[in-house]
């Protein structure tokens, strides 16, 4: 059995499972954000309403709001707080960070666990070797909350094997963006993806994080990286971090293997209207941007701010650009502070925002007027998601975002990396 099958077999009390089986399995963690918690809580109260047998398994993170801008939004958050108190579930309030960066940083998504959530990027927790799947509200309200269980169809496995060493200026985020184009949006619906190969194995935990987060765009059910020494070291550094339930697949041969060499890859940019519209940066260089943002599911990691600082230390952003800096969780901000990066990026003209999911869905920030454009580390670029349907969202690496913030238009980060920085 592979990792997904082993986890599902153990959690459903079976000897073995195979692709196509429908199983009902014990769930370790349900994570919701401020928007999904409201809808799910409402369905639960109206249609189910029994006491939760496992309230600790349910976690809500307020990440779309760090400070509600309207009375209506304040009401929604207050109802979520009241619900969490009444039901005894865990709550991370405004200012905690992005839903998934908060969950993993607190040791609440661990190897071998089953993690479910309403947020479509929930599969990101496959980075620790969890089986992490996005479900709908009725699964959460109907079976996860009252029974601690959910139904799953056992998925077929595809291996994505990546080799090669990146050239200066190209980052793991560029590889991740490019993979969506290469594999194709919605190309692997219902499948499980194992990201593997020397390139993946050579990455630190937080760079591995950028791969299972792609599952939703590819249509996959879940994605993971086989837990190894990198995983163990990361998990053991966390509060409550435990590898007790860590599972590895048996390494059986996989029929469908997709192999890619990423060694020659230039920096990549996903242009509107979808995440699969990915181009080498050269194709879009010169496009004016008024906004640049480091944050969201594809950014907000300490690594992103370190990369941005390589470009921005000793430089100033373009006067037409506003640079939003949104840490993925409070730990990221603390570490950025200790490394002097908070001051560096502030001096460069950037603005630090509270830990949150930033401009994702424009709940608290990030609306654009017709004709405006943003380049960011976010994970979505559908027109209308950030204000006007005539505004544009470009997705790129932290290096490209930072270089573009300096240039006032989309810029090739290799120029900034190879020139070096005279002030460094």
């Amino acid at each position, binding site marked *: 059995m592979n990792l997904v099958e082993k986890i599902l077999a153990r959690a459903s009390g079976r000897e073995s499972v195979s692709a196509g089986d429908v199983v009902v399995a014990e769930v370790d963690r349900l994570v919701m954000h401020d928007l999904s918690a409201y809808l799910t809580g409402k369905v639960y109260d109206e*249609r189910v309403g029994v006491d939760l047998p496992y309230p600790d398994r349910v976690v809500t993170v307020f990440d779309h709001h760090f400070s509600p801008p309207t009375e209506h939004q304040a009401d929604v958050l207050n109802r979520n707080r009241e619900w969490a108190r009444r039901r005894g579930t865990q709550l991370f309030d405004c200012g905690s960070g992005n839903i998934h960066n908060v969950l993993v940083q607190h040791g609440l998504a661990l190897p071998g666990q089953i993690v479910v959530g309403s947020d479509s990027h929930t599969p990101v927790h496959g980075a620790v070797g969890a089986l992490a799947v*996005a479900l709908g509200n009725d699964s959460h309200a*109907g079976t996860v909350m009252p029974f601690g269980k959910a*139904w799953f169809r056992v998925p077929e496995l595809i291996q994505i094997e990546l080799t090669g060493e990146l050239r200066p200026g190209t980052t793991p985020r560029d590889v991740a963006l490019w993979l969506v184009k290469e594999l194709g949006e919605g190309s692997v619906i219902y499948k499980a993806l194992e990201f593997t190969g020397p390139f993946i194995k050579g990455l630190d935990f937080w760079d591995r994080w950028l791969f299972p987060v792609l599952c939703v765009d590819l249509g996959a059910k879940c994605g993971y990286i086989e837990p190894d020494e990198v995983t163990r070291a990361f998990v053991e550094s966390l509060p409550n971090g435990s590898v007790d339930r860590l599972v590895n697949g048996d390494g059986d041969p996989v029929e469908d293997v997709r192999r890619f060499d990423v060694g020659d890859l230039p920096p990549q940019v996903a242009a509107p209207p979808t995440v699969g519209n990915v181009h080498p940066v050269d194709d879009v260089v010169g496009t004016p941007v008024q906004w640049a943002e480091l944050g969201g599911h594809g950014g907000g990691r300490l690594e992103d701010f370190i990369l941005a600082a390589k470009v921005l230390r000793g430089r100033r952003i373009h006067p037409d650009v506003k640079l939003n800096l949104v840490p993925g969780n409070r730990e990221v901000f603390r570490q950025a502070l200790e490394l002097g990066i908070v001051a560096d990026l502030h001096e460069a003209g950037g603005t630090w925002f509270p830990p949150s999911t930033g401009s994702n869905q424009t709940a608290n920030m990030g609306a654009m007027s017709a004709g405006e454009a943003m380049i960011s580390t976010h994970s979505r670029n559908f027109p209308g998601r950030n204000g006007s349907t005539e505004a544009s969202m470009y997705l790129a690496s932290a290096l490209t975002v930072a270089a573009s913030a300096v240039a006032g238009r989309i810029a090739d980060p290799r120029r900034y990396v190879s020139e070096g920085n005279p002030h460094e």
Partner: protein
Amino acid sequence: MSEFVTRFEGRCWTFGANIPTDALVKSAYVFDPMEEIVKHVLEDHNPRFPLEVQPGDIVVAGHHFGQSSGRAIAAKALKATGIGCVVSNAFSRTFYRNVFEIGLPSLEVPDATDLVDDGDHVVVDIAEGLFRNETRGVERRVPSASPFLLRMLEAGGLIALTQSDPNWAEAARA
């Protein structure tokens, strides 16, 4: 419990590929009452749809329908338009879960959108796995959904299933 209807017949409304849940229910409307939400379903792709859709009509959508967010309210809003069932070349996987969980009949037909024009008269049988375009005289036979999912649909959705059958978790083993 009312009779479990698995056969549907009506006017079809066609939609393209990769339509996200945001197009079914925009983020701006998620907290509104369903009577309001339903007035905007798929309006960006066909403004006539929410105004003119009739009970029993059939939506036929392209590849990866309902991608993006997993929010069930997108499936609930589509059901609230009164359509009989929804057909797609391939549903996004969260949307596929959600249509069964909220009790909206559905069928996957890999080339469905090649077989119909908007306004055609179509017949769908989700238990038999039948998709027929009466206007053009073409049909497809496809696998029906798993028995567990059909049972969920028959019960009226996932929550109804768990409340009507204490052994619901065992049903998956059957």
